[in-house]
């Protein structure tokens, strides 16, 4: 009797199917924050620039990682406006991404070790040391395709993209 019951139970177990989810979340050990918001200065009719000398402000992005050699930071300067008045002519974009400050002298080689992509607009930094790094992003937009044409009046917004990507 006992055996029979056991067999029946075994048959029951092998004949039924169930899909069971195993859920889990991974908290990134890398965070991206804006320390200082940037804005454009307008030194002449056809230029928008974040340079402080032209009344602009360079944005500062802070990236924290608690794991060494686990992430890389990918930061791009803008190559288009996210919002602007209607523009009939071309805008020439230039910019630069750099390491502004670090939380350790061991990070002093980040800039030298960085690489570029997307035609130079994106800079990639392997984050080989746990800690905090502050990046600055300069951006200059010139209207008229070299013809020094005046930007139409209005509000202009461009976006700096900063990501922390697992290596």
């Amino acid at each position, binding site marked *: 009797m006992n055996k029979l019951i056991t067999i029946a139970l075994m048959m029951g177990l092998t004949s039924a199917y169930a899909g069971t989810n195993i859920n889990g979340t991974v908290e990134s050990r890398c965070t991206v924050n804006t320390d200082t918001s940037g804005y454009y200065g307008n030194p002449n009719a056809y230029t928008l620039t974040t340079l402080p000398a032209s009344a602009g402000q360079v944005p500062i992005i802070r990236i924290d990682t608690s794991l060494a050699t686990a992430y890389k930071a990918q930061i791009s300067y803008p190559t288009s406006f996210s919002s602007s008045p209607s523009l009939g002519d071309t805008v020439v974009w230039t910019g630069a991404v750099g*390491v502004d400050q670090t939380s350790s*002298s061991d990070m002093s*080689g980040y800039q030298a070790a960085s690489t570029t992509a997307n035609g130079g607009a994106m800079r990639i930094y392997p984050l080989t040391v746990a800690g905090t790094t502050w990046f600055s992003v300069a951006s200059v937009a010139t209207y008229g395709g070299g013809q020094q044409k005046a930007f139409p009046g209005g509000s202009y917004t461009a976006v700096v993209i900063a990501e922390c990507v697992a290596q």
Partner: protein
Amino acid sequence: MKLLHNRNVIKLSALWALLLLPLCSFSYTFGYTSNAAIYGYTWQMNSATLGVSAETGLDISGVIYQYKVVKDKEDDFVVIVGNKDKDGGYIWKDTEDWSGKYGIKLRKFIPIPYTPVELFGKGSIATTGKGTVEDASVIYMYRWDLCRNAQNDKSCPNYIPPLPVIPKFEIYDALEDENVDKATEETDSDLYNKEEEESKDKEVEEEEKGRLEIAMAATENALTIANTASQATLLQIINNATNVSSYYVAQIVGGTYRESIALQGGEIIDNRKALRSLGQDNLMNEMIEEQYK
């Protein structure tokens, strides 16, 4: 029954006291100090440097420091930031070795367990090697318990108004005064008599001298008064002489003086006697000259 009731009351009271204790005892204020390294790379943990009251009740909970390193990559350079403790060691310190690294801006946060500011000694940014530190900033995170020292503020419980300062008075004891001892010493009677006689003689002499001075002064005064009177008279005479008003009113009675001599014949003849005399003069001159030849 009554005993049980009392115990319950005591338990409830103790419970209430425990619940209210955190509300009554602690009221912290949190904040950041000023840049302690603004005036140099060594500093004291006092109110002037930190920009907050660095007295009992201030606990430090962290340090945010930053600086910029200027150096060549191949140079050796070490930077130590920290605070000494009271025993000559470090209450906290952080070392960055920049040897063989690029010089860049550094910003660090150093957490510290809540530590009373009284335990902190001198702070410093010390360097060794070839390179410089620029634009340094050291900011402390703190919490401030105003009433840890009840005397910090009148509003604190257990505050005791300070007693006025009572000045110390020194009580004069004449018996310990050397001058009094000397003055009250027994004096030799012979010496005393001699001194008395000398002082009497001196008094008489001074009295006579005084009289003579008075007499001489009276004489001198009389002469001075007389001189003053004669001088006044003299001045009056001089003033009279200088009174020229009489000359302005004087009149000279005058008339016409006419020519009364007339030239007779209308011819003036030379004086022959005079010519002769002139000739004798020549002769005389020759005679005089002769004697020198």
